[in-house]
């Protein structure tokens, strides 16, 4: 029994959340059972992901290959759990689990009746399952379908809030994201037409031999996939949908959207670029330089736009745009340190940004104030919420001993190793800008006189989830060991060292 579960673990990680999502709808009237099931599903996923990561680390480089239905690779669909997939699975469930605890008993105000909350949870689990699928699958068309499942559930999560602005933000998001996935599908079509394979490994081998026959078609494929995933993961000039969608969503939804949904597309992009086209073709088409340039523009542009926002959630959403820039920059550096730094930064940003959004949501729920300038003295009224917010902000800025620092440090080393001084300067300048838009929040919260009003910390489960997430932030900064090792191995696998 245990042995067969272990052997089928890669597919269980995907199927369990999807399965539980659809049985939730039958328990609409029993809210406690629904919430319990959601938390159980995420906890189960976390345990499975932890076990897979442990196995991958212990196996020292060999990847777990799982053939769906027992059909071997070029004909059947293949699931592959290497270091990259194991790392991303850990991120997904490591963020989904605390956010599910936060959402417990806290959605009535934002989402509405029990029926609506159950539907919200259905989409929440579908998003988790689809992202887990993106992490493990090795088939291009599978990625397209999972990307669509994730997109639709993201839009559903945004529109779950009763406010009409949420519907508007969700529609913009849906249109632009569908545009992105149409482009991705086009890119997959061009790869399929040139190589005749949908399996990433086989397509990559074939592409190395035949790309010179039709270089223009391969060019089209590269650009379609770059722009498609660029729209979906909010690469700077294509980020227009993100601030609205992420700030209008209900609190737990904005935490997972900013924390992991955007990262899912980044991981897919990484799989396509390194796994299908390969580092050599990337250099041939100068994709690496494009990525570094766009990353730098995103860091500066995102941070400057964040500075001008006075609404807390919108400022955090724009900060996500800037942080995505760091990750793209790392993807473009094409060396092990830079790539490992980008993957570690992705991990730490997932945890940090969900903490920040949850804290901001808790403040919004308690005070009803959206603007930063109205949050005077909140640090003394809501000590725990603001403490977690401060820890996460310090980490995002990149103060040593917090997780953001480790990622930025490796990105710096990577860009110096690539012999390029400009990215190194921009990384440091980006930290300064980040401090410029997050420190005012902390200053207003702690050093301004508090008004008379009665504002309190949120309930027990919300506090637990905030404390859990901020502990993870600190642990990742103090003992980055295992995660950094996973990131390093994933980078080595991608670069085919």
């Amino acid at each position: 029994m245990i042995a067969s579960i272990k052997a089928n673990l890669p597919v269980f990680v995907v199927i369990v959340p999807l399965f539980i999502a659809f049985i939730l709808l039958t328990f609409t009237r029993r809210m406690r059972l629904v919430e319990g099931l959601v938390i159980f599903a995420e906890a189960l996923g976390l345990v499975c992901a932890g076990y897979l990561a442990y196995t991958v680390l212990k196996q020292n480089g060999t990847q777990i290959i799982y053939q769906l239905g027992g059909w071997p690779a070029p004909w059947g669909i293949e699931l592959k759990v290497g270091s990259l997939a194991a790392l991303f699975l850990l991120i997904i469930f490591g963020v989904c689990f605390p956010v599910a605890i936060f959402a417990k008993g806290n959605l009535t105000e934002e989402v509405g009746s029990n029926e609506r909350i159950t539907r919200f949870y259905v989409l929440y689990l579908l998003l988790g399952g689809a992202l887990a699928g993106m992490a493990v699958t090795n088939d291009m068309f599978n990625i397209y379908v999972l990307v669509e499942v994730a997109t639709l559930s993201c839009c559903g999560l945004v529109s779950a809030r009763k406010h009409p602005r949420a519907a508007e933000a969700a529609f913009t998001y849906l249109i632009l994201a569908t545009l992105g996935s149409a482009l991705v599908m086009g890119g997959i079509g061009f790869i399929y037409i040139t190589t005749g394979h949908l399996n990433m490994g086989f397509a990559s081998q074939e592409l190395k031999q035949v790309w010179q026959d039709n270089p223009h078609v391969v060019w089209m494929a590269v650009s379609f996939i770059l722009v498609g995933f660029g729209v979906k993961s909010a690469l700077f000039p294509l980020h227009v949908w993100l601030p609205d969608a992420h700030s209008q969503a209900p609190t737990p939804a904005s935490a997972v959207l900013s924390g992991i949904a955007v990262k899912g597309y980044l991981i897919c992009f990484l799989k396509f670029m390194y796994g299908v086209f390969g580092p050599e073709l990337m250099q041939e088409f100068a994709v690496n330089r494009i990525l570094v340039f766009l990353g730098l523009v995103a860091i500066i542009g995102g941070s400057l736009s964040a500075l001008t926002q006075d609404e807390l959630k919108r400022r955090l959403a724009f900060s996500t745009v800037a942080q995505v820039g760091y990750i793209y920059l790392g993807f473009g550096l094409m060396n092990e340190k830079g790539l490992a730094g980008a993957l570690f930064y992705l991990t730490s940003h997932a945890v940090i940004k969900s903490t920040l959004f949850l804290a901001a949501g808790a403040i919004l729920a308690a005070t009803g104030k959206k603007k930063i300038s109205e949050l005077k003295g909140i640090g003394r009224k809501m000590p725990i919420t603001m403490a977690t917010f401060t820890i996460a902000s310090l980490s995002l800025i990149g103060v040593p001993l917090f997780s953001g620092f480790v990622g930025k440090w490796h990105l710096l080393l990577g860009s110096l190793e690539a012999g390029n001084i400009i990215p190194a300067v921009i990384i440091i300048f980006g930290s300064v800008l980040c401090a410029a838009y997050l420190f005012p929040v902390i200053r207003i919260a702690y050093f301004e006189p508090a008004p008379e009003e009665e504002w309190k910390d949120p309930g027990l489960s919300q506090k637990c989830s905030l404390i859990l997430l901020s502990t993870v932030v600190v642990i990742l900064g103090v003992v980055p060991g295992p995660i950094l090792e996973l990131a390093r191995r994933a980078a080595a696998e991608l670069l085919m060292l």
Partner: protein
Amino acid sequence: MKILLEKLIINYPYCIAAILFMIGGLTVLTRSNLLKKLLGINIMESSIFLLFVAGGNIRGGAVPVFDKANVESVYINPLPSALMLTGIVVSVSVTAFALALIIRLYKTYGTVDAQRIAQMRNEVEEK
């Protein structure tokens, strides 16, 4: 020039796909009517379906069913058509969801024009 024209005529399904893609993309980005945006998305997705199906087709190819009498015949590739079945299902669900959102927006604002909705929203926020 003549060779280029010949190539274009021989590969006409791909040309039509490219033209449809551009029509769809332009409609999505330039129209402010939400329904037209949705139509644009649908046109764009259809062009990709056409691209896939054309990629699997072989001129004069047989139906991909094994025939004992005619073992040597060239079959067309059925896989892209099967994949596009999934693509069509996805596109239908996107359309349904988008229509639901449009209905919700229409009930709130009484219009399906993106610019007017933005205007009305800003007016509400200024108050």
